[in-house]
């Protein structure tokens, strides 16, 4: 896939996201009991996620995701 195709992929993801969110109903503060739980997070266990990121960074050619920056390890 070319760089242009990559941009298209990113743009498509953004458009899909906007389309999904544009018409969403308001969630009132008193309806956020479930959302307030710790497990309702993209990364509910940051320490295990950090371990995973390190393992896959050392074994694969890709990186990226939730965190900014990079490097920090001579393993790859």
């Amino acid at each position, binding site marked *: *896939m070319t*760089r242009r195709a*990559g941009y298209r*992929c*990113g743009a498509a*993801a*953004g458009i899909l*996201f906007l389309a*999904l*969110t544009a018409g*969403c*109903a*308001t*969630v009132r*503060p008193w*309806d*956020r009991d*479930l*959302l307030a*739980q710790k*497990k*309702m*997070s*993209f990364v*509910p*266990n940051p*320490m*295990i996620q*950090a*371990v995973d990121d*390190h*393992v*896959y960074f*050392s*074994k*694969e*050619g*890709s*990186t*990226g*995701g*939730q*965190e*900014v*920056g*990079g*490097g*920090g*390890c*001579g*393993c*790859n």
Partner: protein
Amino acid sequence: MRMQLGFPGRAPTIRTTLRAAACVLLATGLPAAASADGGASQLDASVLLYGEQGRANVVEPTVRVTRLFPDGQSLSGQIGIDVITGASPSGALPSGVVAPAPVEGQVQTVTAASGGAGGAAPDPGQIPVTRFGDTRVAVDADWQKPFGLITPVFGGHFSRERDYQSIGGNTKLSISLLHRLTSLTVGAGFNRDDVFPTGGTRLPLSDSTVIVGTGWNAKRVNGGIVGFSQILTRRWMLGVTGSRSVEDGYLTEPYKVVSLMDPSSGIAVGQITENRPARRDRRDVLTSSVYHLTRDVLYLSHRYYWDDWGVRSNTFDLKYRRELGDLTLGDSIYIQPHVRYYSQSQADFFTFGLIQGAILPAFVSSDERLGPLRTATLGATLGFKAPGTPGEWSIRAEYIRQFGKGHPSNVVGVQRDFDLFPAVSIGSLVVAYSVPL
């Protein structure tokens, strides 16, 4: 976690690092101070046990202490130590010949850890590996404080290995919008890394005997991130994050080699050091979803990655948190199966081997991590609170299988008979514990 010779003169540096790390943890985690100002402290600890079949083994303990202040401010300090031993592929092809164990300077022999000659591959079809060992110490700290709907985060990082050092900083700014239904995050990070290969820096595309310097080789990593998350319903949250990082400097793996094949027989008759471009531009888009069912939670994510080395990848990740206890009684026990699949295309300059006598390319690498690989992961986490104790335990076991295209068309002779990308089985166990102090 590179392969290298011993570096006895660096031992005091590790001790100094550990001492500094202890100071950071103590400064952020004093329980007495927590009770005095109305805040609280949290201790998180984990240990990773990781083993590759016939290759590397890792033990990685990590401790993190977080001070939580009444105004929402938090300060964290973390220290992690990686102890790695074992072997990794040197990049060379199988010898293709039945021969006694090679001696230094010949095919199948590369610089190894602890000063020993490694890479012996008595089986003519066996992938040569290099034995090594290393210890890495990493210290991280971060601070954040909410100001109304805006929360800035500042972080710092330092890590040291025998032949690699990294120091960096990062910042993120999160903004809550539209009655806190939408969150926008922007961030930037900078890492100044240095690579100082054991025995000196080898001349690229040479036979490993030509040293071009013994100093440090700089590698800079600058990155940025933009994220957007949206609460869609009472049960569903969706997020899209795009990030980009640009690496400049010494990006070559200093100990990896590329085999030279005899044009007709395919037998490995020599090897040269690899060479990579001095710049790499990486980008990715991560889409994540968290959905709360009646009791359980489903986590889904997909990441698309691409860079200017020609690597493209897709990562699919699924976790399902199944609650096992009675939540109305405050029971907290769950099991969380995990499935992950990763698929990657090879870098433009990746090759399994070169033909002896052919014109050398400007850039070349046989590092399998730049090859056409796949990774499949299957695992599960068990989380629970032990009776009579305040903390939470998480025990996670996973099986990882990494495999690739092991019969490429661009090898010749005997190499066509070998699986040049044999599957690797990996097992990992993580035990984590979190407790308020």
